[in-house]
């Protein structure tokens, strides 16, 4: 009974993790791209009299991509900002209760990410159909729909990753989270 479900979950988990890591790598390259684009604009403008008129849009675009391509990996590695002192103490005295609480939290997180995906999907459809863009025509424009799509896919992937955390027993990702905690932003 349990076995096929378990195998299915394993496969989904593998795929979701692979997607998160791949998206993360893509987002990482965009960080590098961001550094290069802004420097290109500064140099082209300052020394060659030829500013890159789309710099602002490209920066805005890459911010969305960086955040939403990396977010699933942040979720996967358990590095979403939290204050887990209470959970840690509880784990020492009432491990079962602590585990139940952890699952409840991950479930609530999955619900929230579902709401985000639900909110963004119609935006994507609308932008895709109307070919809506931002920027000024004749100066620089970029379409909106890839941004909405990135947010939607990211939210879906985060939902899946949270659900996997709910059904799994203390995952390796959690262990890695403990290990990584010191690098969290303050």
């Amino acid at each position, binding site marked *: 009974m349990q076995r096929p479900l378990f195998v299915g979950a394993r496969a989904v988990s593998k795929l979701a993790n692979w997607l998160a890591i791949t998206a993360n790598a893509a987002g*990482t390259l965009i960080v590098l791209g*961001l*550094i290069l684009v802004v420097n290109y*604009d500064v140099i082209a403008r300052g020394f060659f009299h030829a500013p890159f008129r789309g710099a602002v849009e490209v920066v805005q675009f890459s911010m969305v991509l960086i955040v939403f391509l990396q977010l699933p990996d942040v979720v996967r590695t358990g590095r979403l*900002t939290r204050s887990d002192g209470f959970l840690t103490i509880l784990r020492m005295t009432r491990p079962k209760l602590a585990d139940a609480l952890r699952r409840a939290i991950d479930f609530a997180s999955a619900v*929230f990410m579902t*709401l985000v995906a639900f909110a963004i999907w119609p935006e994507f459809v609308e932008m895709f159909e109307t070919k809506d863009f931002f920027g000024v025509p004749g100066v620089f424009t970029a379409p909106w729909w890839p941004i909405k799509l990135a947010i939607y896919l990211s939210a879906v992937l985060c939902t899946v990753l949270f659900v996997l955390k709910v059904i799994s027993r203390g995952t390796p990702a959690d262990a890695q989270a403990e290990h990584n905690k010191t690098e*969290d932003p*303050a």
Partner: protein
Amino acid sequence: MSPIEIGILSVIAIVVLVYLGVYIPIALGLVSFVSILLMRDNFDLAVNLLKIAIGDSVMEYTFATVPLFTFMGLIVSKAGLGADIYQVMNSGFRRVKGGIGMATVGANAVFAAVTGSSIASASVFSKVSVPQMLAFDYNPRFAVGVVAGSSVLGMIIPPSAMLIIYSFVAEQSVGDMFLAGVVPGILLAIAYVIAIFLMGRFTPAYVGGRRMEDGEWMSLLEIADKTLPTLALITAVLGGIYTGWLTPVEAGAAGSLLGLLIAGVRKKLSWRGLWQALLETGHITASILFLITAASIYSRMLGLAGLPNELGDILTETQMSFFWVMVIYVAMMIFLGTLLDTASIILIVVPLFLPLIEPMGLSLVWFGIVTVVGAEIGLLTPPLGISCFVIKATLNDPRISLKDVFVGAFPFALVMLVVLIALIRWPSLSLAILN
């Protein structure tokens, strides 16, 4: 429910959820969502709030400063610039009681000008200065306390992720916030040095340590080699912003590129190291900006509830004085600082207080400095004090417990409070450089 009730209940709900261990952005987002449902009984409106806040918040041009300055901080740490500055400072302070402590503060202040977070500072200096202090028989609690206390400078002296976050919430210019942070940061560094001097004078046993008699003065060439790269970076980044040559985003990008060059020339950077720094930058950016997005959902929910309007009315009715507003504000930040990280504190309290501060005719730039310094006290206070956690984890030394770090940091948290009061009392400390 009245807006005030919604406001109070939502803060309580968020604090309880966060304390239970709910991810902070999720707590902010869910509480806001439910608040709208309770308030307007309209599911679509609640969804629409998510829709607009998520699309809007990340698209901000100035947010590119977050990844750029984060990356720059990571790269210069790898390039060893923090350790270099520390060695130079150390050779200067070596004959003074508590000298290594003072050198740590000084090096932190300089290093702060090229990194955007306190984490980088805390991890760099626990590696270079704690072991040396222990070797010279300093009291371990004092040693870790100095590092914890001075790591805070990383986010007060610009560039600073926290000043960027504040400038977003309060709609102030990032450049102005950066410039306003310079004097308060230096002031805090000086206050730390004075505190260390006084500790050495009146509680020498607590400080411990012996003089370094053996050290040679560094040669000018050596000093130049160890300080010039950092000075070049500071000049490019802060100079670029101050003169207006570069926007903060461009300064961040230029600083990142320069940092890469410095690390490359010094052969301190492998491909793997570069990839890790980029990866880390991405993770930090995503978690900070997701948090900001969630906080923006929350502050818009308060706006929709009409809380700002209501608070403004209360202020005019009760004639609450500046003094009491600030007392409540600082108390709230210190309370939240026990368990929240700095960014979350800023994002939760600022939307609540802006409607009180703005009509009083107070400078929002000044208020930002007060906010960031106040919220950073939480880095040093238990149970959650991120700087202290980082130091404990980086040291990984069984002789030093987390409790030692917190106890050692306590005097420095007090110094911060004193400086905070001075900054509140004399706004020109923050604003003079702008005019």
